[in-house]
């Protein structure tokens, strides 16, 4: 997921008014001046030390994990994220095995006959859609390839992308990121996953019907 790129290049020698404001804010942020101002507690939201937060403490050692209880902000977030690492590794380790033994190929086979009646797109798009369940980027690349090779037209491209866009990278994201919430769920873990999978079709069908009505003109030259 997040692949932020630093785009600030080339103008590092221009020092405008914004730069001085940034410097001032930086100094104030790290200074600690905002930490404890009587009557203006909200200012502590812009203080480095306050936002650093605290680790939880072992209020009840018998029950607490290393997260402790009552931690806040960056420190609590860090430890919490750390506590997710084992299950994410476990989930992706097993996903890799299931993929290796053909689980994805079987899913592809089952999905293909549904595509034409439900979404009006050819069965050969199934591979790109299935791939999207694992990797957004790979799914997008396959989709573009299909269009470039004239296997699908513009309208089919939009419908396919609609299917992929809502809940992109579904399986990997759900098990890698969503696993943070699994312990809290009051329903079996599979139910949200099946629902999301079904709704991918619903969303794409909605887009398809809008394309067939509101944007009908755009595709009159295609068949």
């Amino acid at each position: 997921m997040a692949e932020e790129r630093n785009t600030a290049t080339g103008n590092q020698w221009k020092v405008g008014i914004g730069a001085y404001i940034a410097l001032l804010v930086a100094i104030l942020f790290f200074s600690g001046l905002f930490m404890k101002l009587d009557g203006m507690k909200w200012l502590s939201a812009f203080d480095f030390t306050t936002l650093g937060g605290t680790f939880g403490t072992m209020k009840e050692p018998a029950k607490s994990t290393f997260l402790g209880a009552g931690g806040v902000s960056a420190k609590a977030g860090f430890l919490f994220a750390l506590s997710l690492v084992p299950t994410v590794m476990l989930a992706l380790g097993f996903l890799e095995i299931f993929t290796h033994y053909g689980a994805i190929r079987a899913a592809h086979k089952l999905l293909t006959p549904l595509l034409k009646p439900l979404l009006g797109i050819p069965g050969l798009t199934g591979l790109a859609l299935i791939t999207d369940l694992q990797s957004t980027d790979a799914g997008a690349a396959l989709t573009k390839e299909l269009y470039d090779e004239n296997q699908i037209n513009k309208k089919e491209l939009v419908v396919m992308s609609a299917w992929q866009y809502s809940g992109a990278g579904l399986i990997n994201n759900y098990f890698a990121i969503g696993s943070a919430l699994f312990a809290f769920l009051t329903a079996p873990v599979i139910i949200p996953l099946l629902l999301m999978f079904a709704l991918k079709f619903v969303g794409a069908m909605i887009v398809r019907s809008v394309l067939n009505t509101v944007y009908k003109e755009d595709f009159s030259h295609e068949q």
Partner: protein
Amino acid sequence: MSNNTKSTTSNNPFDIFVIGARKGYQIAINNLMPNVLMAYVVAEILNIIGAMQFIGSLFGPLMGIFGLPGEAVTVLLTSWLSSSAGTGIAVSLLSKGVLNGSHATILIPAIFLMGSQLQYMGRLLGVADVPKKYWPLLMAASILNACIAMIIMRFFA
């Protein structure tokens, strides 16, 4: 997640597991951890300046439709930017007792159905060359999906 590289150098299931686990580690460290940390800090800022309570009362009626407290809207808004961050907000609200397990159950499909749309614009719609004209339509469909999901999940939560 750009991890579709078929590394079929070994057929040993133990080796395959390790390859996957390594991917999981990369995701957890490079992706989950910075996002969750950010989410915790954002939640704390909103909490200190009192915006959380304000958002809670402002969106209370709207979120009530989905059986959620008003504060849950912060999870959805953040999810739109990044599902990891949205999940992080959800967990921090759970640990504060603002949300409970049923709320998490209602929210979880929505987090992913409308999740990370900002970055997927570039990574999916941009890469696949979907004409920009239809982007708002796809976005609206995703948000609609999320709403449908929350309504359905009310019956399971």
